[in-house]
């Protein structure tokens, strides 16, 4: 768990919505991201996590406002390194590409130096530079993708499920690496994952997305130690640990409630039917979209 002490805002998001035909992939997102924050975005597939990242990086049309309060360079690391690295390019060329295309650096010496520094920073051996992606393991490929992002010195790094296609122990290596990078480079990170335990380790703040809406947001320690939404509670108690636990029951309710989680919610009752589904402010920076937030535990 990390803490963000910085108060300076870097991204201000107001009423962000993304709509495909009649379907809202994201709805009414209001958020302030601070400098040096590691924002953990947690949700299932279809919750709008990737749409959120795409909107911020400007590769998705949206309604509402995303304002950068400082001129910032953004870079994106994707889930599957096998498809985000060009199979016909050598690792050297892969890392070099943004330097030429984006940074317009022509001096071969500077390029070489930057590539060598980046490859060392991500813990790879420079022998790999002459290899092709298929000759590397999944973890090594993800490190190359990170190196490719680091060479351009981004201010904001968006990591979309970067550990989920890797083995657990390899994923843990990548998380350690990202933490080192964060501490050394003082950057802002948006870290997307369906695995809340990874977010616990790496993030300073968390938003919980479900069907395009924020169900809960707050500081990482508040969200994990004191969750207020039943869905967050399920996510946390479903972290499979090696100590045996009761199996978690997922409900199948028929409801008229505006609450989008009411059909699966173990806390659902008739009271929820009158709820307008608004985000409720509980304490400093901790917000939740549930009227039963005070008694979500059994």
């Amino acid at each position: 768990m990390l803490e963000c002490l910085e108060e300076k805002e870097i991204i201000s998001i107001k009423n962000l919505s993304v709509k495909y035909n009649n379907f809202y992939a994201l709805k009414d997102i209001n958020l302030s991201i601070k400098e040096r924050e590691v924002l953990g975005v947690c949700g299932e597939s279809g919750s709008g996590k990737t749409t959120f990242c795409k909107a911020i990086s400007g590769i998705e049309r949206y309604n509402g406002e995303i304002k950068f309060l400082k001129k910032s360079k953004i870079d994106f690391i994707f889930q599957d390194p096998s498809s985000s690295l060009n199979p016909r390019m050598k690792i050297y060329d892969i890392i070099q590409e943004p330097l030429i295309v984006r940074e317009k650096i022509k001096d071969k010496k500077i390029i070489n130096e930057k590539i060598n520094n980046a490859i060392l920073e991500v813990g790879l051996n420079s022998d790999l530079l002459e290899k092709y992606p298929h000759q590397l393991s999944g973890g090594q490929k993800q490190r190359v993708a990170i190196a490719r992002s680091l060479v351009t010195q981004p201010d904001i790094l968006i990591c979309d499920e970067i550990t989920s296609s890797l083995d657990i122990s390899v994923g843990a290596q990548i998380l350690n690496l990202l933490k080192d990078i964060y501490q050394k480079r003082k950057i802002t990170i948006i870290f997307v994952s369906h695995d809340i335990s990874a977010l616990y380790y790496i993030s300073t703040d968390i938003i919980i997305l479900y069907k395009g809406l924020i169900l809960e947001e707050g500081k990482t320690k508040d969200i994990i130690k004191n969750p207020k939404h039943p869905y967050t509670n399920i996510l946390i108690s479903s972290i499979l640990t090696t100590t045996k636990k009761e199996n978690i029951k997922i409900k199948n309710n028929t409801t008229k409630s505006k609450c989008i989680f009411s059909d699966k919610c173990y806390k659902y009752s008739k009271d929820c039917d009158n709820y307008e589904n608004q985000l409720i402010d509980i304490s400093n920076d901790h917000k939740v979209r549930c009227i039963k937030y005070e008694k979500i535990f059994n």
Partner: protein
Amino acid sequence: MEDLLEIKDLSIDAKIGNSYYNIVNNVSIKVKKGEIVSIVGESGSGKTITSLSIIRLLEKNLSIKKGEIIFEGKNLTKLSEDEIRKIRGKEISFVFQEPLTALNPVIDIETQIAEVLIKHQISDEKKAIEKTTKILERVGIPTEKSKQYPHNFSGGQRQRILIAMALIANPKLIIADEPTTALDVITQIEILNLLKEIKEEKRSIILITHNISVVANYSDYVYVMYLGEIMESGKTNEIINNPIHPYTKLLLNSIITLEKKERLKTIEGQIPSIYEIPKGCRFITRCPYKTDKCTKEPPLIKHKERYFRCWNV
């Protein structure tokens, strides 16, 4: 409980170019009736290959070099293609890892599931459709969606459809290869709970996973595999609470828990490829406890009900 399946000293070679490389070495696994047995290990450990060999779905360049696979008294490795086809899907079924590629995109799901019963001549078409409706209900797919195609379903639903397909012929053994890896937390719990229900009907399941916490919560017996060999095996609670082999210990350590940690523990390095299998203990290149002895092949040691392969315990 009696054994339903026994794999004895199974070795599998891969032919690449003109050379043979060993990818599964002396693997022995027992599955009892009504038991979930898991095979756990990182990718590249040979879990999937071992399980595919049971129903003889190995790629052409892979061949069983030695060993037996005994299922209800029959040695599956000796059966003809026709004979194994009668077992595959009917007696032993397989839930594949990638639900998107395992389903046929141009056939509606009802027809795909019913096909199992029709091909195995268990039911006529009408009966088969009836049974399909029931099984879809059982796995939680709305029956009004049964005429739809795979792309109409989410990842979790596709995985349920595959499980429905694996269940429909009432097999005695279900092999589930990473059935929850591509899924979200909530769906993962739902699918694993479903597998547990199936087990309670006295059917057996081989659960293949790289996630040792899934193992801890859902299986009765565990085989820890690394680079084609079983490193350690035993009852789940014994392996989890008292791991003996260094690899098992490291796997257990690399789980992220909600304890405050400055750094996550990892297993240094990576699993070697089949071209560079080390001499002696296969885990030697990554083992923090290795000694001079480890360059010799470690013996399989039996201690009470557990087996492990390590010199330094």
